[in-house]
């Protein structure tokens, strides 16, 4: 079981309020991702749940039981750190065994769980090596192994992939998702990378300056961002956000159009501009289009083989029902 509830949880460092009072419920078995720009308080929130930081006010419950004042070890949670935080003087086997040793588990059970975890994480051949002799991806697996053998109520991941190279990151992303499917244990995952959030999460929590901006499934956030911040943060490439007369035409302060919701037409169109940089991804092409009267270039997704090059004139029409509208406070207008 691993249902975690935060009630009016608040964190201050001295006079500085890092996390204003905040409510959040994480259901058992959910994969929740905290995402936001750096300094938004997502790691602090995770550390509050872990017990590595004390909450200034409010209450944390794990499976209904108050955990606010419990030390980290007593909360039944396991954490995977950004730096892996392996014990450098211990072999992989001892690293994985450490939490079980601390719990006083009998040796036979320890060996059984180590063998199982090592098998699942492809670490069987490395059990007698030290962390220093492993690659980044292997170290990350050891850190995960150390977390799963405890059979915790929930896993906490603090930007676990940010030290890996791009190819490895995609691979580990899949592995962690697989792990979640097979263990069905609650996972809380912190990242600043919205692609990681979109691909892995059941539920995304978007944070800015300690505030929760929106909570929802990846597609909910994508389709109906609650405000301009979420609209701009979720989705890659970014949503085109326009103000002024373009927005006024839709009776609002800001409109947002995702790159894939702009159609290229032969003539006329709502926007006419010049093609700037074109990013050819093979399957798709993203054009950065300079439109008169709009400061930032607009991004347009087109097919893989569109015969437009730098400097060409392009005509764009937004798909009418896909335009997001926001009021003067930046909030979504339904």
């Amino acid at each position, binding site marked *: 079981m691993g249902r975690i509830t935060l009630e009016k949880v608040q964190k201050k460092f001295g006079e500085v309020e890092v996390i204003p009072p905040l409510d959040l419920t994480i259901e058992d078995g959910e994969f929740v991702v905290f995402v936001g720009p750096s300094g938004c308080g997502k790691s602090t929130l995770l550390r509050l749940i872990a017990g590595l930081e004390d909450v200034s006010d409010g209450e944390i419950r794990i499976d209904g039981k108050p955990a606010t004042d419990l030390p*980290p*070890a007593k909360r039944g949670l396991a954490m995977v750190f950004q*730096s892996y935080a*392996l014990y450098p*003087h211990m072999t992989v086997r001892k690293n994985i065994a450490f939490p079980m040793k601390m719990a006083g588990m009998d040796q036979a059970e320890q060996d059984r769980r180590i063998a199982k975890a090592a098998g699942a994480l492809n670490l069987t051949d490395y059990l007698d090596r030290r962390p220093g002799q492993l690659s980044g991806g292997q170290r990350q697996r050891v850190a995960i192994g150390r977390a799963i053998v405890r059979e915790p109520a929930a896993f906490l991941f603090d930007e676990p992939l940010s030290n890996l190279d791009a190819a490895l990151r995609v691979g580990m992303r899949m592995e962690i998702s697989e792990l979640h499917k097979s263990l069905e244990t609650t996972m809380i995952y912190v990242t600043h990378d919205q692609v990681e959030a979109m691909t892995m999460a059941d539920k995304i929590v978007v944070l800015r300056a300690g505030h929760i901006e929106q909570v929802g499934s990846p597609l909910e956030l994508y389709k109906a961002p609650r405000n301009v911040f979420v609209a701009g943060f979720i989705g890659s490439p970014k949503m085109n956000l326009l103000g002024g007369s373009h927005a006024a035409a839709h009776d609002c302060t800001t409109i947002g159009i995702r790159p894939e919701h702009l159609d290229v037409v032969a003539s006329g169109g709502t926007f006419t501009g010049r093609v700037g940089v074109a990013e050819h991804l093979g399957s798709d092409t993203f054009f950065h289009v300079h439109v008169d009267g709009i400061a930032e270039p607009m991004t347009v997704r087109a097919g893989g083989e569109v015969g437009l090059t730098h400097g060409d004139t392009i005509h764009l029409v937004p798909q009418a029902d896909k335009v997001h509208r926001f009021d003067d406070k930046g909030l979504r207008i339904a």
Partner: protein
Amino acid sequence: MARAISTNKKIMWTSLAWGFGLVMFFPILWTFLTSFKSEATAIADPPVWFLFDWTLENYTAVQERSNYPLALSNSIIIAVGSTILGILIAVPAAWAMAFVPGKRTKDVLLWMLSTKMLPAVGVLYPLVLLAKWLGVMDSRILLIVVLMLINLPIIVWMLYTYFREIPGEILEAARMDGASLRNEIIYVLTPMAVPGIASTILLNIILAWNEAFWTILLTTVDAAPLTKFIASFSAPEGLFYAKLSAASMMAIAPILIMGWFSQKQLVRGLTFGAVK
């Protein structure tokens, strides 16, 4: 990129370094030579360098006249004892200051260091009175405690510096893994700090071994270590340079040999963290 250094410069710096090294080493060399001279040769003017009748008579005389084994064992017990006691106190202290620093941690560290600036003689009188009152004058336990206290600031400072180099996330991981504070120190922190602790131990043994002020003043016979042993050859009967030298050589030989064998560890420990 290696810098080009002209041969002349190299020769100059090399001879300068050697010259400096020899000046530093000279007193030990001279003591060594004198310890093999007769008393008459030892005070000959002009001094005799290598061409004299080498003799072991000073070493025999020193052995006969005093109890070298007792002084040696006292030195070992006091140096090792005060070091172990100091480490036991300093590891938790340095842990606290490195990983859960408070507002005044820096001040405490500086204050501890400032006690090293206090002239030792300033506390001699109260310390002697206290020792007499407790009935521990001329006992090993007194010296163990006093030398531990004297070197404690240095031990704490050294360990603090080493502990600061250990990433905090690893200790947090241990906490998440269910380690109690005690287990965290025993299984995670201490093993990772072994190189630092080892060089702290070595340095402290050397400091305690060489400490002369307190060891001479607080002992008479029973707990007298090698420092007292040397001093006893300089006093009343006049100056016996050759015997004094022999006694000195016997006193410094063990620590010199230990230092020689552990110099790699010592240098590594002392520069730990300086180069990353």
